[in-house]
Each structure stands twice: as C-alpha cells, then as structure tokens.
C-alpha cells in the first residue's frame, strides 16, 4: 500500500517538475507590424499599449524621435519605429498604437503600425539573430520560428538606449 502511494507521489512529483520545465521554456511575446515585417518584444517589458495621443516636438533630436507625450502626468519620449528602422514615414491610421516599453527606469513610447497578437513560443524555437548583423550593435535579440512565419524578437534595452 505504502509502496503504491509512494509511486503515485513520485509520479505526481515528476509531472509537476515536468510542468515547471515546460513553463520555463515558453516565452511570451507581443507581436506587432512595422513596415512589412513582424516584430515582437517580451510581454513583460511592456508597460502599456495606448492609442495615439498628441505629442510635443522636441528640437535638436534625430528625426525618429517624434517628441514627448503626457502619460498620466509623466513626460515620456515618443519614438517612431518606422523612422528608427529607416523606413518611410506613414501617417497614423486607426490601427496605429503607442507601445510604452520599460527597462528598469528607462521608459519610452514607440509608434507601431499595428498590433498582431500575443505569442507564446517555446524557447527552443528561438534562433539567434542572423550573422550578417553586427553582434554588439544589433537591436535583434533572436528570431522566433513559428509554423507559418518567423518573428523577429527585439532587444528592448537596445531600443531604449539613447544613440545620439
């Protein structure tokens, strides 16, 4: 009897451990479109996603910095990802969103063309960034392979890094 019980407990434990491993391996991302490509960032680095609101231009900054906007009393920089990636500017549409990303104390809003979906992806499906991009300078953290497409995962800390 006790042997049987032990077996059951063991099995349960195993199952639990197995589950945990599975949970650990899955990463959660939020996908969005900029230009023709789908990008994604870890869900935990997103503070919030809002519809476009008005912003104030800040002089003496590169073109991809649209300015600053007021997010409930905080003044937050706004960066256009199209311009950041060297794409042609496009007017905001109904689907345009600001993704407010944070990394530690650094916070900034990013203009994206539209959101796609929240993605759960096993870690093993994430490959390294293509060799062609310079290792230290790249904004790409890796490439996630999904059944029908590939998703570029971006480095949030790199996006939030001032480079001018």
């Amino acid at each position, binding site marked *: 009897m006790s042997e049987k019980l032990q077996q059951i407990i063991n099995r349960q434990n195993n199952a639990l451990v197995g589950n945990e491993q599975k949970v650990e391996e899955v990463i959660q991302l939020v996908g969005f479109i900029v230009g023709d490509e789908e990008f994604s960032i870890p869900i935990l680095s997103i503070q919030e996603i809002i519809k476009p609101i008005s912003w104030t231009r800040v*002089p*003496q*900054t590169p073109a991809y910095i649209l300015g600053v906007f*007021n997010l409930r009393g905080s003044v937050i*920089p706004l960066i256009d990802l199209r311009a950041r990636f060297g794409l042609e500017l496009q007017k905001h549409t109904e689907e345009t969103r600001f993704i407010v990303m944070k990394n530690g104390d650094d916070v900034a809003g990013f203009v994206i063309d539209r959101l796609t979906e929240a993605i759960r992806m096993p870690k093993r499906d994430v490959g390294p960034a293509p060799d062609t991009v310079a290792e230290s300078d790249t904004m790409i953290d890796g490439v996630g392979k999904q059944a029908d497409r590939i998703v570029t995962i971006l480095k949030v800390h790199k996006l939030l890094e001032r480079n001018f």
Partner: protein
Amino acid sequence: MDEFEEILQDFLIEAFELIEQLDQDLVELETRPDDLDLLNRIFRVAHTIKGASSFLNFDVLTHLTHHMENLLNMARHGDLVIDANVMDVILESIDLMKALLVRIRDSSSDAGVEVAGCVERLDAVANGEASVVPVAVVVEPIVAIKAVEDEVDYSQLSEAEVEAEIERLLAEKQTEAMAKRSSAQVVIEEEPDYSNMSDAEVEAEIERLLLEKQAQDAAKRANKSQNSTPPPPAPLAPVVVAPVPPKVEAAPPPKPAATPRRSEPKEEGGESKGGATVEQTIRVDVKRLDHLMNLIGELVLGKNRLIKINDDVEERYEGEAFLEELNQVVSIVSLVTTDLQIAVMKTRMLPIGKVFNKFPRMIRDLSRELNKKIELEITGEDTELDKSIVEEIGDPLVHIIRNSCDHGVEIPQIRLDAGKEEVGTIQLKAYHEGNHIVIQIIDDGKGLDPEMLKSKALDKGLITEKEADGMSDKEAFALIFRPGFSTAAQVTSVSGRGVGMDVVKTNIEKLNGMIDIDSEVGRGTSMKLKIPLTLAIIQALLVGVQEEYYAIPLASVLETVRIAKDDIYTVESRSVMRLRDEVLSLVHIGDIFEVERVFDNSEHAYVVVLGLAESKIGLIVDTLIGQEEIVIKSLGEYLKGIEGIAGATIRGDGGVTLIVDVAALMLMAKSVKSTVGQTGSEAKKIGVKNSASDYCVMIVDDSKTDRTIIRKSLEPLGITIVEAVDGIEALNILKQGDHFFDGMLIDIEMPRMDGYTLASEIKKYNKYKNMPLIAVTSRSGKADRMRGVESGMVEYITKPYSPDYLMNVVKRNIKFTEGF
C-alpha cells in the same frame, strides 16, 4: 551594534550642528576676548564633543578635543589671553576636529588623522609660548595689536574688578597646585570658574560632570570588552596650567586686524539663559520633503487642468445654475493648493545664515593671509530660501568674497593714501524681492576699471578690438565672468587663476539667477545676485511660435516689448534692436528650436527680453500666451541634455510644453544664423515648382459627381488633385501634411462640416493662412457671397460653370506658371 550606530548618527548630527556655530563664535571671540558667554559656549562645544567621543571610543578625537578644552578652559578662567596667535592654533584645531568628524562620518573611525602636531601647539600656547609658529598660517603677527592686548590698564580697573582679579589669581594658584597633585587631569579641567556661573550653569555643570564620568567609565568598559577596536585610550598628556599671565581680564577690547562683526549682534542659541524655550522642532528626512514637494507638483498640475476645464464648461453652459457651485469648488481647490504649496515650500526653507556663517572665519583667515584689514558686515542672515538653493549658493559666494578680498580691498597703506579708512569693509546682504532672494556683496575697495578690463581681455584674446570699442561699462564688468579671465596681476593662492568667477556664473545660471555688477573706480564694487526662491515649481511666461508653445522661466524675463519689423536692424549679419539706450541682440525662437516656419506676415513681433547672470538677449516670438505656474519635469534619461531645453511641464490641457533653458539658449544664440525679417525658408522651398504635378489642389465636395466634374476640368493642367468628401476629412488631410496644398475648391453645403466653417478652420492654421480658398456652389445669393468672403474665400464660382472658367480661376489663384 545597531544601537551604537544610532548613537553615532545622533552624535554626528549634533557635532556638525555645534561646529557650524563654532566658527562664527570663535571669530567673534577674537573681537571680544573677554566675552565670557561666548567663551563658555565655545568651551561647551569642545567639551560636549569630547565627552561623546570618549564614550564612543574615538580616541584621537577625544585626545584632540581634550587639549582644546583645556586651552579654552584656561581662557575661560582668564588664565590666557586669546590673541591672534592663540586663535590661529584654536582654529587649526577646530579644522582638525572637523576633519576628524568627517572621517568618522565616512568611515566610522577616526584613525589616520594626525593630531599630535596640533596638540603640541595647543599645549605650547597653553604654556604661554606665544611665539609658537602654527603651521600653514602665515604669521604676519599683528605685533602692535598684541601689545595693546597685553597691556592692561590697571588704573582703569574699578575696585571691585581688582578684588575679582585677586580672587581669581588665588583660585588659579589653587588650581595649579591641584594640577600638580593630580595625575589624571580630568578633575582639573572640569574646574570651571564657578563664581562666574549662573545657577542654571552650575546645574548644567554638575550634570555634565556626571555624564562625563559615566561616559568615561563606559568608554573604559567598552575598551576592555571590545578588543577589536585597536587604538588604546589616548595617552593623557600632562596638563600644564599656564603661568599666570601678567594682566588680563579687564583689558579694553583691542581692535584686531580682522573684525568681522554682524551688524545685528544677535545672540543665537542663548543656551546660557537656561533651557526655558524648548524648541518645537522635529527632524524630517529631506527625501520625505522632496516626495511631498513632488506630490504638490502633481496637485498644481491638476489644479491648472481643473481651472482650464472650468473655463471651458463656463463657456459652454453659460448661465446654468450648477456653474456657480463648480466655480466655488474650483476656486477653493485652487486656493488651498496654492496655500499648501507655500506651506510645503516653507518646510524646505533654510535661513541663508547657514551659508553666511562660514564667511567671518574665511574673511579672518584671508585678511591675515593677504595682510589686509577687512571687516565683514552681514545683514539679513535670517532670509530664507529653498534648501537645494542654499546648498548651491555657497560656492559662488565663496568665490565672490574671496575675489573682493583679493582684488577689491586694497592693502592698508594704499587705502590710507587714497584717503580711505584703513579697514576695508565687505557687506554681505540678503533680502527678499518678490519671488526672488537678492544677495548683495559690496566692497569699498578699488573698484573695477572698465578700460583695464577691456585691455586685459584684448591681451588674452577674449574679445576683439571692435567689440572692446562698442562695450558699455556694464559689459566690460561682465568680462570678469569669461573663462580664462583673471585680473590679479599676481596669481596668489587666493585667486587669480582665472577659474573662480566663471564658476560663479555657471552656478548662478544653474539656479536661474541673475548677476548685476556695479562698480566705481576707487569706490568699490557691488555684486547683486538675484535668485528664485524655489526650483521645482516656477512661474513661467508661455510663448508661441507657429503652432508650438514654449515656457520661459519668468525669473529670467526682464520685460516683453512689441516691436515693428522695421525696428529690427542687422549688424554683421546679426539682428539687433534698440531698447531705450541699449542695443539688444535678437534671436528668433524658431531659429533656436528649428521650428518649421511657414508664413508670418504680421508686421509686428514680440520680443521677450531675457536676462541671466550678467547677459541679456532679446528673443523674438510670434505670440505671448501669458503667465502660468508650471512644475518642472525632467525629459527623462533618454532625452536628457537636449541643448536649450531645461525640462518639460504638463499644461492645463494635458499637453506637454517644453521649458526653455535660458542659459543654453543664450549660448546657442551666438552661433545661430539670423533669419529675422526674412520669409520662412520653408515658404521659399514651397515656392519652387519644378513640374505641374508639384502643384496640389484639394477638392472638397460631398457629391461624387461634382468632384468628378471638377477633376475633369482641372486634369488638363496636370496638377495633383486630392479629394475629400466633407470638411472634417479635408481638415484631417491638411493636418496630416502629406501634401502642401496650393489651393482648395470647397463646396458650401456639406454634411458634418460646411464650407464656411471649414474655411474659417483652415485660416486658423498658420501654414495655410494664405492658401486661396475657392467656393464652388449653387448658392448664389449676395448674402452667401458675403459669408464666403467673411470666412476667407477668395473666389466664388456658382454652379453650373464651364470647365475652362474653373480652370482659369484655379490657375490664377495658385499662380500656376505654364511651360512645364
């Protein structure tokens, strides 16, 4: 251990507070060496620190303070005359004590600071060897004065005084005898002159003795139990009671070289009068106050917003009963917020005396070092200002005062020759002026010679000859703030290295302050620093340029003037204007902040005259919005350090407005090429049309048929045509700015927004103020035409029309040039 930490913290706070007052007292003591109150106070400081440090096992500190105490005790009993030399040693020991305390604060240990030399000197002075040469202080002994001090006029002593003197001498003898008997001198030094003490003091003394004993016992115990603390109890140096000095006590107060005095000799911390008034204070961590201030900032923003909404509501629901109530609530909230803000600001206020206190000592040291006789007069040390500013203002003041001592006040002989009093005076004044605090430093020295300054600046290549010629005296005075400028012929350890005043300027600018120099050769120099009371919430002037707004700290705004475009002159490709008897250089805010300038045909411009530190500039803006209380917010890590922008604030409408960094703006203005008086460069760019398709016209009509007819009529021209179905859509297209439109064809009757409204909306846009609007409509009444003109239409085409007619009207209005 935690308990120990806590005690240590308390000890440090107390010790630093005591020391702050100490410098002041000591310098005063030199003036009034017989002031027993003062002596007692100083003695108590040394004593308190000694007691506590021995309890806390700081042996080096104990050793030092012990000897100080010893010396001071002698002085207190009249066994020692405090003259300049003795004072030098005492001050040296105080400095050492400070160093030790700082060390303890930083490393919780007082090891590593050498005190033996100082202790030796203390003892030597106590022994009456007045000739001891203290280190680091130039001894240009004021022999004459010393002589005066030593010479006591017995004839002036009253009988009672003589009695006292005898008694004192007797007591002294006894003390001396006791000293010889006792190896542990603790007892001796605790032997105060009881006859000179009030009851309260005797009480205090007894308590002190008890505490002392306890402290020492505790220290011994602690030492035994704590072998890990290496330094053994300080070796108790033999105490030598000074041989009875020839004559003392009633000596008339001598007039030493440096006589720093406060014009209002206010006895601060009159503890000797007994602890009757218990201070109702509580220590609060500055962080908490900062947090409170931040919250108030948010509240102020909320208030601004509320006021704005109230105004909007008022407009919309005029005459409704609930408005009254809303109004009341809004005004109460606004009132309370303002009061709250002032109240919290007050909690952060510190008297500027905190900074001023260190100057008497500084002047004393400087005057000894420079062989000058300088008196410092301080007024308004109770004037309060924000803690953060108090912290920042110290350094600039040190520089200015050092400068006044070194370059301003002359040496005594020259002063006498010039018919001035031998003793130079430096006045340090502080007072409130509106939302500012003014600090004035006035010396009666030789003054600044503008010609000399100019030639000096020329030599150093700081200015050109041309600049020098056109310089007013004030501008010449301002040269001393240039980096690399130094007026001292000889570089001394005090100043003349050409860094000081430059630092002053930067620091004052950081505080949004202004500097005003006034000087007269031979009469002296006055420097006026004007500094805003707080930094977090400020009054700002809001200005507009095109469609952007900027906030300028009102502290830097001297005045605003409205000028005609004709009043702007160009001198060497720089714009200037005449403001009363001054020539003011101008810069357009749009040039500084890269504002896209579309059309600006107004004949007038507003000039905001900015003043900062000692410089002035005129900033041209399109509109003045008004004055508002704003809360400074940082732009964050990502955007920090943007040139010309000090921060941002959130306005009543929820939008973000950038705050102008006036100091940076003035720098930028120097390198910006002026475009004042020219039409915007953007406008020129638009004017260049290379092909027919560069022309762009919008058709606004709700009927698809009409739109097609118009399109067909214009197609032969080859111009770009954009269509919109109603006013709202047309406005959106304009806002997006994908195209720059040369003209618009507008139907009058449309859903959502009609043609008239659209026209007047478009006219609100600076960019399209001058765009021709052509009405295309079936309404042909005169009234309709009138309305069309009123709303800004330039042409009125009534349906039906011939395609040619339409095309020609459009061609004429968009100034279409054929031949592409």
